[in-house]
């Protein structure tokens, strides 16, 4: 039970007093938020937000919602960079709003826009349902029938999989990838998040399925030209390109472009791999 010595604001205190008690810096932030719905007018609306020490962009958006514009839509949940809901483009960079500190940004107005690669629903909220469809297309982890022996998995394999398991499905990597963002190939390209998922399954020593052809054919793995933009924006610091995509490309090449294996496969079937 914390005993608070500083004077507490009364229940009826205006929000400004409450904030003073929790560390107003005296500065004001101009937040330019893209507001609108598809088919209607979308425009940046500027809001003046009093800055609090340690404030993150999501705090500023909440201040706007609470005090200036209760109708401003944004997704969020954990405010701890773990649920992956609050993705947006702050000053043009795809980030988690709850992890982006105001004092880390250059002085001056800050723009907050919705993720550009997904269809807009309202204000900062986009429709990311295509990602869930792709997710369903990937066959889940499948082990061989249980023969009663305990699984032994080497630590290296565990470490490799743990990196991929850190994904919080914020879809920032999907947002930044030019195959989806500029070419709009969401119908033929799974995107970095799902190459991470496929890699985690393909590299699991106890998984028995083979998703390489699917990843090449429906997943469009070949479109990726290893720009590493996805890796750069990943808030979980997953080495998407180096540890998931490139090894997957190698595995696909093993099947389709290794002449020795190619002949072997023709002669002896898939198990020749």
């Amino acid at each position, binding site marked *: *039970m914390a*005993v608070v010595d500083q004077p*507490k*604001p009364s*229940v*009826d205190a205006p*929000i400004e007093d*409450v904030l003073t008690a929790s560390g107003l810096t005296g500065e004001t932030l101009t937040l330019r938020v893209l507001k609108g*719905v598809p088919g209607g007018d979308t425009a940046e609306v500027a809001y003046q937000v009093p800055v609090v020490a340690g404030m993150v962009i999501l705090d500023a958006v909440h201040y706007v*919602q*609470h*005090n200036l*514009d*209760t*109708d*401003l*839509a*944004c997704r969020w949940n954990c405010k701890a960079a773990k649920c992956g809901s609050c993705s947006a483009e702050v000053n043009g960079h795809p980030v988690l709003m709850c992890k982006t500190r105001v004092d880390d940004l250059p002085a001056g107005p800050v723009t907050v826009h919705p993720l550009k690669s997904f269809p807009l*629903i*309202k*204000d900062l*909220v986009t429709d990311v349902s295509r990602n869930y469809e792709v997710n369903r297309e990937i066959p889940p982890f499948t082990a061989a029938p249980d023969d009663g022996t305990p699984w032994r998995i080497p630590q290296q394999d565990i470490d490799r999989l743990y990196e991929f398991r850190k994904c919080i499905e914020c879809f920032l990597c999907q947002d930044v990838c030019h195959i989806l963002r500029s070419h709009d190939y969401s119908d033929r390209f799974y995107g970095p998040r799902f190459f991470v998922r496929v890699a985690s399954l393909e590299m699991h020593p106890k998984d028995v399925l083979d998703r390489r052809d699917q990843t090449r054919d429906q997943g469009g793995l070949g479109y990726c030209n290893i720009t590493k933009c996805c890796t750069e924006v990943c808030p979980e610091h997953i080495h998407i390109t180096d540890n998931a995509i490139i090894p997957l490309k190698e595995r696909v090449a093993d099947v389709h472009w290794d002449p020795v294996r190619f002949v072997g496969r023709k002669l002896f079937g898939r198990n020749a791999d």
Partner: protein
Amino acid sequence: MPGLYAAGEVAGGLHGANRLGGNSLGDILVFGRRAGDAAAAFARTDGATRAIDDAQIAAEQAALLQPLGGDANGSAPAENPYKLHEDLQLAMQDDAGIGRSEESLQRALAAILTLRERSARIRVAGGRALNPGWHTCREITNMLTISEAIVRSAIERRESRGSQWRFDHLEQDAEFGKINFVTRRGDDGMGVASVPLIPLPDRLRPLLERSRFYDAAKLPKGYLTETARAVGTRRKKK
């Protein structure tokens, strides 16, 4: 209410007086499974299709839409639901935290009742699509109900137990260990009734009785009392 199932912590009361971080996982698994099985079985019965009173639906819709309906009635100014939310947070934080007393709880109750009056005048701009202010109107209404139930029950529980430290009742009272407080909506507001606990199955009782927390006499000397007294005196000085 037939057909309504609860899973997880909302199923209530599983962990007794205290609730430690991570305990919810047990609730999720046990009650998720039980609620899922039961709901599936219920869906196959005739009872699953029942007529719902249109008047009730209309009343609920009207209540939901009211905050979108332009000016607040009467001369008092419209209320911002987020303001109410903040005020409720402060009232609960200050007066209904882990350390509490009759005096502080009565203060919290008074604040909640005032907020409830104000909540009749919440108004927000915008429409029904993804309007967080409008969602908050619903949430604050529910939060006020839950907060009132918490505070009214805490007032009745004149003892310290688990995560309730009553500065005015520092000891755990074995008699209170035999009852639960249940809040019900009555004609003149919310009422609190005490109901006896359902006795533990015989196979579980020895487990619980072994616990030193089951019986206040077995509590380590000074547990609760000393710390609570210290905090209580410091608070009173303020």
